[in-house]
């Protein structure tokens, strides 16, 4: 059966940990493992990392730093697959960014590379003024 869960929260950096640990617990629903975030389970770790990247990008790239806009995260929970999508009202961006050129010690640009590597599928589309980045991974 397919269940969905929606999380709406202000786009502030202090919520990064809240989001990534919630995602970790949702992922643990599928693996049935213990809830502890640091257990070696590759599936939950992948989501904890990927969602932390995506949420941080959404917060840092918001149009005006004045007052934080809301970010909505939708979890689609299926027996063998978890899909997480993040909606924000930021300006459009592309997810096919080139990998950072490591030789000259870049300080950013790693986020999307990490998401692409730990998730099975990552798609981005733009719908009535909001970015939707969707990532999924199979157990």
């Amino acid at each position, binding site marked *: 059966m397919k269940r969905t869960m929606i999380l709406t929260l202000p786009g502030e*950096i202090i919520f*990064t940990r809240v989001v*990534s640990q919630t995602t970790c617990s949702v992922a643990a629903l599928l693996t049935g493992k213990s809830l502890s975030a640091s257990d*070696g389970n590759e599936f939950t*770790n992948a989501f904890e990392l990927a969602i932390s990247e995506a949420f*941080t990008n959404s*917060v840092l790239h918001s149009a005006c730093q004045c007052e934080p806009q809301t970010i909505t995260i939708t979890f689609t929970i299926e027996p063998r697959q978890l899909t997480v999508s993040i909606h924000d009202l930021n300006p459009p961006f592309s997810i096919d960014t080139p990998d950072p050129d*490591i030789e000259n010690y870049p300080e950013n640009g790693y986020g999307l590379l*990490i998401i692409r590597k730990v998730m099975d599928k990552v798609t981005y589309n733009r719908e009535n003024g909001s970015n939707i980045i969707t990532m999924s991974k199979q157990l």
Partner: protein
Amino acid sequence: MIITEISKGDVAIIAFNGTLDASSAPELRKNRALNDPLQTVVVDLQKLDFIDSSGLGAIVGVARLKDDRRFGILLSCMNDRVRKVFEITNAQKLFHIFDDTKAAVEYGATRQSTCK
């Protein structure tokens, strides 16, 4: 995340404890030893249980400001989760990584004498 200074000297040792992400990354800028371009620092990551790209970017950023980029920051006692983030981003090519802090300090000390 908490940064604790373990020891000073030619090769300083500091330890990270907790999670290093966008919210805790700015703390690296406040640490004197990390930001002194001439100071070799061994960062003990034993108690660091989560790092994401912002955390990694902060460490790379600090290493970039060191006079001797490749040996200014040495990393030790990484757990598998942290190592995988370094591996995915190829950042492990930028740092000398040890599984024992004392070994890292000795290596740093020998580097100091040769490159001074």
